[in-house]
């Protein structure tokens, strides 16, 4: 009984510690990815004279490329093992969700492997994102017509 209690205590302690540790690394790595995005944005706006709207899109594209490349050479998954949600929540996590199944299933062919598998997770994101945005668009249209917004 005492040994069991001890085991449970140890388990609770380590679980709590690992949660704090996981959150710390998620914060550190996720924050760093966002910081990298901000640095790239400054470079595009100040050094390349790109307007802010376009620079924002370019930042997304750059981060997606970086993540796709790191996923391709197998490094992103290693960072993700430490970073947890820190590598999932930024847009690099979306790119990883596209590229990772592609690398895994490419042996099944171009049409049956790469094509459909790239949307195995991202498809859900795009589908629900688009559907929700259309619903919002219709509501916004009605509100605009009633003179509430716009």
């Amino acid at each position: 009984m005492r040994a069991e209690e001890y085991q449970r205590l140890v388990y609770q302690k380590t679980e709590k510690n690992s949660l704090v540790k996981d959150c710390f690394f998620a914060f550190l790595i996720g924050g760093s990815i966002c910081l990298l995005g901000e640095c790239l944005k400054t470079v595009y706006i100040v050094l390349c004279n790109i307007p802010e709207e376009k620079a924002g899109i370019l930042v997304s594209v750059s981060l997606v490329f970086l993540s796709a490349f790191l996923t391709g050479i197998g490094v992103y998954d290693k960072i993700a093992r430490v970073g947890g949600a820190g590598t999932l929540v930024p847009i690099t996590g979306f790119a990883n969700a596209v590229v990772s199944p592609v690398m895994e299933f490419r042996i099944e062919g171009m049409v049956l492997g790469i094509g459909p598998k790239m949307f195995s997770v991202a498809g859900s994101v795009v589908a629900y994102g688009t559907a929700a945005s259309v619903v919002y668009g219709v509501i916004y249209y009605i509100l605009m017509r009633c003179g509430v917004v716009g």
Partner: protein
Amino acid sequence: MNYLMSFLIGGVFCVIGQLLIEKTKLMPARILVSYVVAGIVLSAVGLYEPLVRFASSGATVPLTGFGHLLAKGVREAVAEQGLLGALTGGLTATAGGIAAAIVFAFLMALLFFPRKK
């Protein structure tokens, strides 16, 4: 200041994701979907635009920013083209990121051989 806020707010978004994973056993795919939809909702009620001004990349790089971009695209398109904009606005605004992910996925599949786990 923008750099510090990007780091801090971006980090907070990720910590919330980490807590959701460990406390609610939500699968990562569900987190991605929830974040995008949450971004649309936050943008719709007018909270996300101020956050973007405050935290810059800390708000635009997380996937809630992707949702905000969808919602913002829809708003602008509806204002310009009426109801049709509800269909075209979201994907038009996010096309860059989505197309980039698809094209780079192909590129990586051609460049690198599958890894043994």
